[in-house]
């Protein structure tokens, strides 16, 4: 895919490696390309290499090996201030000794723009984030959310083609965060800016992005649009990391017509969809099932579903859904989510039930 897309790719990482100490690689063989206007999120646990990638793109870290290209030209030897990339930092990095207007004026001044042009652009940028009245204040006089908007306005005021955001919403409370997520994606799409966004919050990644690159151990584990990522995780790390997930372990008995028969550790045989390349007869595997794809109401279990006995451990009423913890095939942490509807039976702990799922929703991944 990288090769075919490379002609219209705006940002490209080509076999990029990074090591700080000369012994271990923090980023291992990274290949990635973004078309113009895409909103790409780098998602991963801390230490997975996502921030390092962002910093290499911004120019604050140099790649140990490989090429980073912007608009087709290699930027490996271009200093950060010549790259023309807007950036939003985790702690906003608003200059405390300048007013909001001065903060926004800074990138325009270093570009030697005239006063009237600057004022116009500052006004437009502030209006864009609905902070028009705050130009004269200092950053310390603003709330976290307001500072966040100013940081965004500052990164956009000089009209860069590419904006990098390093966990910009990490310090905000949940409600504000959700609101800002929406605003940022809107802005990015309306202005048609290419955005690389780094976060460790998978909800944020799924809601905001065109595509998400899931990082772990210095590699991209999967690069896909949010729905694909959620529905079709390619390996057990992605399955675990994105959304809630139930895991059962076992050994592949055989594979027939695209259906793998897996013998679980307690002897139970189930049908699954073989996803990972390591799924071969005789190999150990981890089976992944999303909680909302499991049914226990007899009439809702679909035709062709695989059924299994289970014991209810816990039943939690959560308003829109019921969350039930079960003991399934020796796994006491098996969780299912059921939408609250009048016809759904409410369970009690200790109750023996039968659950079922479609073989397509049961994905055999790497062990």
């Amino acid at each position, binding site marked *: 895919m990288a090769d075919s897309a490379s002609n219209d790719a705006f940002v490209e990482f080509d076999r990029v490696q990074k090591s700080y100490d000369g012994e271990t690689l923090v980023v291992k063989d990274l290949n990635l390309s973004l078309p113009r206007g895409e909103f790409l999120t780098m998602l991963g646990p801390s230490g997975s290499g996502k921030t390092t990638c962002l910093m290499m793109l911004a120019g604050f870290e140099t790649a140990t090996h490989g090429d980073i290209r912007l608009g087709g030209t290699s930027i490996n030897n271009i200093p*950060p201030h010549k790259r023309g990339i*807007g950036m939003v930092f985790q702690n906003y990095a608003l*200059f405390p*000794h300048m007013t909001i207007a001065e903060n926004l004026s*800074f990138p325009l001044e*270093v570009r030697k723009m005239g006063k009237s042009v600057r004022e116009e652009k500052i006004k437009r940028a502030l209006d864009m984030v609905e902070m028009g009245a705050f130009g004269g204040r200092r950053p310390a006089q603003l709330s976290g959310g307001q500072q966040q908007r100013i940081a965004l306005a500052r*990164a956009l005021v000089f009209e860069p083609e590419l904006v990098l955001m390093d966990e910009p919403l990490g310090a905000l409370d949940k409600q504000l965060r959700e609101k800002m997520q929406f605003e940022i994606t809107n802005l990015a799409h309306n202005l048609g800016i290419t955005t690389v966004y780094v976060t460790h919050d998978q909800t944020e990644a799924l809601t905001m992005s065109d595509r998400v690159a899931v990082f772990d151990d210095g590699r991209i584990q999967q690069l896909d649009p949010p729905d694909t990522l959620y529905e079709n995780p390619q390996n057990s790390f992605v399955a675990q990391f994105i959304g809630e997930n139930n895991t059962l372990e076992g050994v592949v008995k055989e594979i027939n017509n695209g259906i793998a028969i897996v013998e679980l550790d307690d002897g139970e045989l189930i049908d699954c969809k073989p996803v990972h390349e390591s799924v071969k007869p005789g190999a150990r595997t981890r089976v992944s099932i999303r909680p909302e794809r499991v049914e226990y109401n007899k009439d809702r279990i679909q035709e062709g579903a695989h059924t299994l006995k289970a014991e209810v451990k816990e039943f939690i009423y959560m308003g829109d859904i019921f969350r039930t913890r079960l003991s399934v095939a020796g796994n006491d942490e098996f969780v299912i989510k059921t939408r609250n509807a009048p016809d759904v039976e409410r369970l009690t702990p200790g109750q023996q039930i039968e659950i079922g799922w479609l073989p397509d929703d049961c994905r055999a991944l790497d062990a």
Partner: protein
Amino acid sequence: MTDATSQSGPVLAADGTPLKKSLARALRLQKTRALMLIAPLLVFVMVSFIFPIAKMLFKSVENEIVVETLPLTVAELQNWNAESGALPDEALYAAFVADMVVAIDAKRHTRLGTRLNYEHTGMSSLFRKSGRKIKKLDPAADGPFKEKLIDIDKKWGDVTTWAVIKTHSVKITNGYFLNAIDMQRTPEGAQAQPEDKRILIKLFQRTLFMSLMITVSCILLGYPVAWLLANLPARTANILMILVLLPFWTSLLVRTSAWKVMLQQQGVINEVLVWIGLVADDARLVMINNQFGTIVAMTHILLPFMILPMYSVMQTIQPTYLRAAKSMGATNWTAFWRVYFPLSVPGIGAGSILVFILAIGYYITPEIVGGTKGVFISNRIAYHISSSLNWGLAAALGTILLGVVLLLYWCYDKIVGIDNVKLG
């Protein structure tokens, strides 16, 4: 809340008392408790610091010794006019002998002689020598005294002697302050000192100038070091920090003497320069016993006081500010000058105030390496405290120095703002 603000009268607390009053009551308890907590320190500072300093400063105007030693004489002197050019009459001489006999008995006359000798050379021996003879006189029986005194020492027949006593007989005098600014108190009022004795104003100016130079060189040398300290990895920074603090652990005299060994004409630096051939053997550089040597040695001594506040301020400047600036298109220099430097100014301010105030009061180092051109006003203060015992003049000089420091502090506050100073 809308209810409360829409009321026309004062806001009331639940029990009906005005809210402001009950708030004040609640706060009073807190304030009292806070005061109690600092009370021991407050008492300690008052007793051990403020009171002695106030007492010392008071010496700059205090001049009771003349009236206390010669009460009758001083009273008689009021009737005598120095400008007339005529000697006082017998009544004054009699009063003087009566005073002196009492003073000699209490051994106070020589002390008065020392005091008056600061103003008029010769008074010290006049009182000491005359004392031995006046001792033998009986104020009741041996009069008249005018001729006898002039016989004992002809200076008692000199109008100037009496004029000096009269001029300095006030209890609270401005004499010391006048002396401190190269003037003197005379029967005709305040007058400038003769030109060949004017030194103190020059020393004040020099002290301020040198302290400023030292502060500036501390900023120039200390800033990069503080920056390194704040930006190096912790382990390396700790080693560097030890190097910065090292001067604190060596005696001041050792450090100053080490500079002597480095800078003197047969010293290390000159030897090296001659050896390299940069400097001819008969034209070795004079780097010590002058202003240069003083600035070098004092900069070295005071450098940690500049580096530490700078360091603690720089530590709080997040590296993301610089990255943000660069991401917006600023070069390294612009990012430093427009973003990092302004944020580090409070550290420079704190360090400068510390260094400047310490420098202004230094005297050991200028004494050792200052030669004739690197002497500070503090050296004169030390001289008057420990050698000439003219504590009044020393106190006046000290008070002026204190005033200058406060004035500069005030200017700093006006220009930079004192809340813009951070020690950490």
